[in-house]
């Protein structure tokens, strides 16, 4: 065996020693190339989801029904942009640039969460996204605060804290609706009816059965960048959400939803995974619109970014000249 391979083996052993002892891999540490690539894809997809996710909620900023709600919504969408920033920065520690990642998003080579391919049709959808979508996101992400890659784990700590705040705001916004007029309550129920199954689908395909996906799960768990299976997280979300729906006085659109004493969990109807795969493939109500909006914003801003670059170069040259 050549010395290089020996070194590779040593490095890999060091990596797994850290991961297995629940330590943190830092950017300068050695890591397997597949780990690096998988993390880049995962963090990038998460970052893309934050910035695409600004659109469905941003859709209601101009029309928010009170100034207080307008301020809350603006702050929330601003936080999402901020999350995008942290996450692209975390991905950059793995040796890619934000520009490269944005390019992969814009050319459809990387994905974002399919949930954002559904439209926000009424104001109640803003509350429903906060309650359900952020709720599902937190369920997915809290375990990642303990993931093996340091920069990602630290970004998740901050993000989860803010999302948990957003989730409570979403719940509170819906509560105001369900305690309001009949029209407001109907609006809230309609939002739940439309967002329930897409939210369940956010946890991805089931772990077993014919719809199980490529099976990266095992590898990701070994690497400490996934802690629980899709179905475990989905169950956790349902168990958390059903009692909240009762407080709201809203009916989850699942006639088979009921507490199972034996399992100690709610039984529920799985989302339509065929729909999930269709939407992932690009055939959701808003895939085209979201990506076009994103690409247009990027292209419209190209001259601004170029100007900032040119200005910075000029300033640097001036400073260099002054120093010479």
């Amino acid at each position, binding site marked *: 065996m050549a010395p290089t391979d020996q070194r590779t083996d040593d490095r890999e052993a060091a990596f797994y020693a850290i991961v297995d002892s629940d330590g943190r891999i830092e950017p300068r540490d050695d890591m397997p190339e597949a780990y690096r690539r998988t993390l880049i894809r995962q963090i990038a997809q998460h970052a893309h989801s934050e910035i695409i996710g*600004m659109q469905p909620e941003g859709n209601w900023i101009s029309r928010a029904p009170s100034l207080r709600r307008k301020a809350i919504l603006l702050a929330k969408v*601003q936080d999402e*942009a901020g999350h995008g920033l942290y996450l692209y920065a975390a991905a950059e520690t793995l040796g890619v640039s934000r520009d490269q990642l944005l390019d992969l998003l814009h050319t459809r080579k990387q994905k974002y969460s399919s949930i954002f391919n559904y439209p926000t049709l009424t104001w109640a959808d803003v509350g429903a996204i906060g309650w359900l979508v952020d709720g599902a996101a937190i369920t997915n992400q809290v375990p990642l605060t303990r993931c093996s890659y340091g920069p990602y784990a630290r970004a998740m700590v901050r993000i989860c804290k803010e999302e948990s705040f957003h989730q409570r705001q979403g719940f509170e916004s819906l509560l105001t609706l369900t305690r309001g007029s009949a029209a407001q309550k109907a609006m809230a129920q309609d939002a739940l009816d439309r967002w329930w199954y897409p939210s369940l689908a956010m946890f991805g395909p089931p772990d077993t059965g014919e719809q199980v996906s490529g099976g990266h799960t095992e590898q990701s768990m070994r690497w400490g960048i996934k802690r629980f299976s899709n179905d475990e997280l989905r169950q956790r979300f349902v168990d958390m959400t059903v009692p909240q729906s009762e407080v709201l006085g809203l009916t989850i659109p699942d006639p088979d939803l009921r507490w199972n004493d034996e399992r100690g969990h709610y039984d529920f109807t799985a989302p339509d995974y065929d729909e999930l795969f269709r939407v992932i493939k690009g055939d959701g109500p808003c895939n085209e619109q979201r990506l076009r909006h994103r690409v247009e914003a990027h292209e419209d801003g190209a*001259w*601004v970014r*170029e*100007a900032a670059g040119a*200005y910075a170069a000029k300033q640097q040259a001036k400073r260099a000249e002054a120093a010479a």
Partner: protein
Amino acid sequence: MTTQRYALALGDDALILAQRLGEWVARAPELEEDVALANIALDLLGQARTLLTYAGELEGAGRDEDALAYWRDDRDFRNVLLVELPNGDFAVTMARQLVFAAYQYELYDRLRGSADETVAAVAGKAVKEVHYHRDHATQWVLRLGDGTDESRRRMVAGLETVWPYVDELFEPFDGADVDPTALREPWTAYVHGVLAEAGLSVPEPTASRRGGRDGLHTEHLGYLLAELQHLHRSHPGATW
């Protein structure tokens, strides 16, 4: 004591500009600007809420911030025309930001000394926010003015677009806590300084548009208000 008309004018300025800046969110040239513009919009919205609430109290007819924001028609809005102009490209928006933040900075700096405690308190908080807004716009005017040929061309056009709306900021206002005419000189010193540093000329004075303080707006405001108010007006009396 601050007049209701004055509180309304200042509140409307902040509200309408917040609405315009909110339109940039998820459309900005880079993510940092999505954050920055949302942040500025939030600051302005906060100022608007306090000032409109106070205007409602001064009026004493039981109107709160939402009653004033959502139930007045465009003839009753008192904002300057500058803030209701469509965003245009990023250069137009930054030209407007420079003009307006530099004005608000001088205004709030002086309003801290208002005999009206509420207004003085608003100003004390707002002056710090607006200092950042002014700095943000300044940095961009420098970058765009001294960036590429295209950015320079756009920055010149942006300044020309907003310039006819500058005079209105400094028109006399009966019963103002701070005389707007007194703000022009320090404003000029600051803004002309930025333009000089960016290598940009001060636009030639052409037209001078006014009327906002009397409710004589541009045709743009009606569309802005239709969007702003439609949902709220569709559910009279509802709580959100």
